[in-house]
């Protein structure tokens, strides 16, 4: 198992409603989630806004520390591992962020953005690794000298992918990475991701609000609603025969580009 997650809970303090005395009330974002991510699987995590899907992703990478439950990564309990001990395993799980304008440091060149994490983990031969990563995501090598703001949205997202795969991680979390893209670049990025998963033997968690994209890419799907797992299963089975009312409602609400779909 890549990930074994049991009864995962996470809450944030709600400072805006802090009373004069006494503890700050907390907002429960994740309310006890349990699921496994087997190695080599592409897991889709889907839900509406406020479902907790992005928080779940960030907790899995330990960008956030859970308030309850356990997260085991490849057998190792990382739920409360302090950051300095976590650093040794960080290379093994990576993340691709939703908004590349925010996740790519605007004052560094693409080459430095990709090679930074490599250098940190003591890798050598940075130049050829950067080139290789750029090749893999289908960007010309001379893009290494450009700044993020000189690229298009789709290109930026490829840089984000290149940075993640250059470290040769075992697991990647992709958080809403195509939601800001047009359909044509979206299709390209999705195809690229699928290729990389196959070629590099990656395990991938793909967070998205878009069921059509999940259907396209994922082996298994997890439906999240108000911080709880509503439904989980093999993607084909889940889409063909959704078991819960929420999933059914979600599927029925999607407008397909097909005038004959019974929708109203």
């Amino acid at each position, binding site marked *: 198992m890549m990930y074994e997650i049991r009864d995962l809970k996470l809450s944030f303090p709600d400072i805006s409603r802090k009373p004069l005395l006494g503890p700050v009330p907390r907002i429960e974002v994740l309310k006890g989630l349990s699921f496994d991510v087997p190695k080599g699987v592409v897991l889709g995590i889907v839900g509406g806004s406020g479902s907790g899907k992005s928080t779940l992703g960030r907790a899995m990478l330990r960008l956030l520390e859970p308030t309850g439950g356990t997260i085991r990564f490849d057998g190792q309990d990382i739920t409360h591992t302090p950051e300095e001990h976590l650093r040794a395993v960080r290379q093994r799980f990576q993340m691709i962020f939703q908004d590349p304008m925010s996740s790519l440091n605007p004052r560094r060149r693409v080459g430095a953005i990709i090679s930074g994490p490599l250098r940190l983990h003591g890798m050598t031969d940075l130049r050829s690794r950067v080139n290789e990563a750029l090749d893999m995501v289908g960007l010309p090598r001379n893009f290494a000298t450009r700044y993020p703001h000189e690229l298009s949205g789709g290109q930026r997202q490829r840089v984000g992918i290149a940075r993640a795969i250059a470290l040769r991680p075992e697991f990647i979390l992709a958080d809403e990475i195509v939601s800001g893209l047009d359909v044509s670049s*979206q299709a390209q990025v999705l195809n690229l991701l699928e290729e990389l998963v196959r070629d590099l033997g990656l395990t991938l968690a793909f967070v998205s609000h878009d069921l059509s994209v999940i*259907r*396209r890419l994922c082996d298994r799907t997890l439906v999240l609603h108000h911080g709880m797992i509503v439904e989980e299963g093999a993607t084909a089975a889940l889409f063909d025969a959704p078991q819960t009312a929420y999933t059914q409602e*979600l599927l029925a*609400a*999607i*407008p*397909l*580009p097909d005038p004959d779909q019974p929708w109203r």
Partner: protein
Amino acid sequence: MNSFLEVRNLNLSLKAGMPILRSVSLNVAAGQVHGLVGESGAGKSMIGKAVLGTLPRALQVTSGEIWLDGVNLNSLPTAERRKTIGAKAALIPQDPLTALNPSKRIGPQITRRLVDILGWQKSDAEARAVELLHEVHIPDPARVMKSYPHELSGGMRQRILIASAFAAEPKLIIADEPTTALDVTVQKQILRLIAEMQQRHDTALLFVTHDLGVVSKTCDTLSVLYAGKVIEEARMRRFFTRPIHPYSAALLKATPTYTNPRGSLTPVPQSVIDATEREVREHDMRASR
């Protein structure tokens, strides 16, 4: 059929000279819904902005005519044009969170323009607002009228914006990506509501969206834009069953749908993009001659 909006050969460019819209023509009749489809930067929102007179200052109309309910907007002086647009057209904006003035109560945001621009009595305007809020299925309109925007949910605010758009019985509604910021389940309710209101009031509706799925549920006819040029104009059913332009066809193929099995997604091929680019350039050559 009575045409409420007619755009003839509209050309729009940056003040620096770069074309944004290239000889766009379209026609929306009473009770009709016309979709404007295209990727970001194709200029689909700019058509709506040109009609409503809210273009960014860096853009200018270089040629073409816009007729609204039989009136040529270009022929009117600025102040009168603004009033005509205010009386005959309305906008349903994209983001309900920023489309209501946070420092004003909901009531005045619906009624003020009826009083200020159209010269209604205040009491008439208020009665009208309550009636409209009923129409968009808002419970307890009197209370909502007294609320501030931040006290209401996103879906609720979008309903208010729809109500407000229909307040002056406009001939034309322009909806600019009205559901892009919403969850799918809310999106479905809002799209239904827009359709319901549009049919009840028999207005023309110009629907701007990047989502082909939404188009297939809302529009009667549509124009596909690429680089500011209409590359295909079609009735809705025909477009989805037999798209004529290769770019339209490629766009349909690139759109993921959960009903299709895995592996059927094809990005728009470079050859199609090149051919479409060539078409745009040829148009520019002809136009400059």
